[in-house]
């Protein structure tokens, strides 16, 4: 298994992922309780909150890179279909940009999460600060 790269080595255009995980009821309840939702939709139904996927970009990134210290500064999510409990999700994407602003170094990830049937779950663009300069 190849040694993982560090955050500082990230290059625009690098592919990230695929990262695979199976949606469990525990994950659905975790996401619902994290956001303090009390709705029976998630304790009795078969779908999970789409917010379950809000950290998918970092899971895909960690396939190839060490996580390091990063601060999440921006999230842009298009929720296309809710995740279904029991289905496997596959996250993949690219490092879409790397830029410096006021002496600070930022990375931008674009990812798509699909389920095992090819259904798109979420398209995301996330920006993280990786160095305070």
């Amino acid at each position: 298994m190849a040694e993982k790269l560090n955050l500082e080595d990230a290059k625009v255009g690098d592919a990230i992922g695929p990262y695979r995980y199976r949606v469990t009821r525990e994950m659905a309840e975790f996401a619902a309780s994290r956001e303090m939702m009390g709705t029976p939709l998630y304790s009795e139904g078969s779908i999970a909150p789409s917010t379950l996927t809000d950290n998918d970009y970092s899971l895909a990134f960690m396939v190839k890179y060490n996580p390091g210290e990063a601060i999440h500064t921006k999230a842009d999510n298009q929720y296309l279909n809710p995740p279904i409990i029991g289905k496997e999700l596959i996250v993949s994407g690219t490092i879409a940009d790397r830029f410096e602003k006021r002496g600070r170094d930022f990375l931008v990830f674009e990812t798509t999460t699909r389920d095992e049937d090819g259904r798109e779950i979420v398209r995301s663009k996330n920006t993280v600060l990786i160095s305070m300069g």
Partner: protein
Amino acid sequence: MTVSAGELVPGFSLPPLTRTITVEQIVSSSRGRESLWGLPAAGKNIHNDTETARSIGVRDVVAGGVVTMGLGWEMLLDAFGERWLKGGQLSCTFVNMVCGGDELTVKAVVKEPGEGDAEGRVHLELSIENQEGAKVIVGKASVAAG
């Protein structure tokens, strides 16, 4: 409470949503993510350890951005139901830290479509403020018009 299409005119405010975020929720969010996704356990950091958080000058553990963003998502789900689940778009910038014990209020107002905004959708400006009125998230959302 699903909002009717007729209400969705520019200037209309969705009913605000207020929640207090606890230290336990922030720590369990950080730890739960590790255990459920099989990630390596993180050492002490600002999300799971009060002393580490205080070392950077904040009152208590700091919520990850997505924890706070989830409040906006819930408000939009309440307002738009299935339309939100299948096609909702939420864009958030995290502008201030959220600590355990903070009371957060989500607000969203329907706005006129601007340049680059897709047609056939309802566009909203969204913010989340803490108990002192400081914005912690600013953003926008959109959903199919119906």
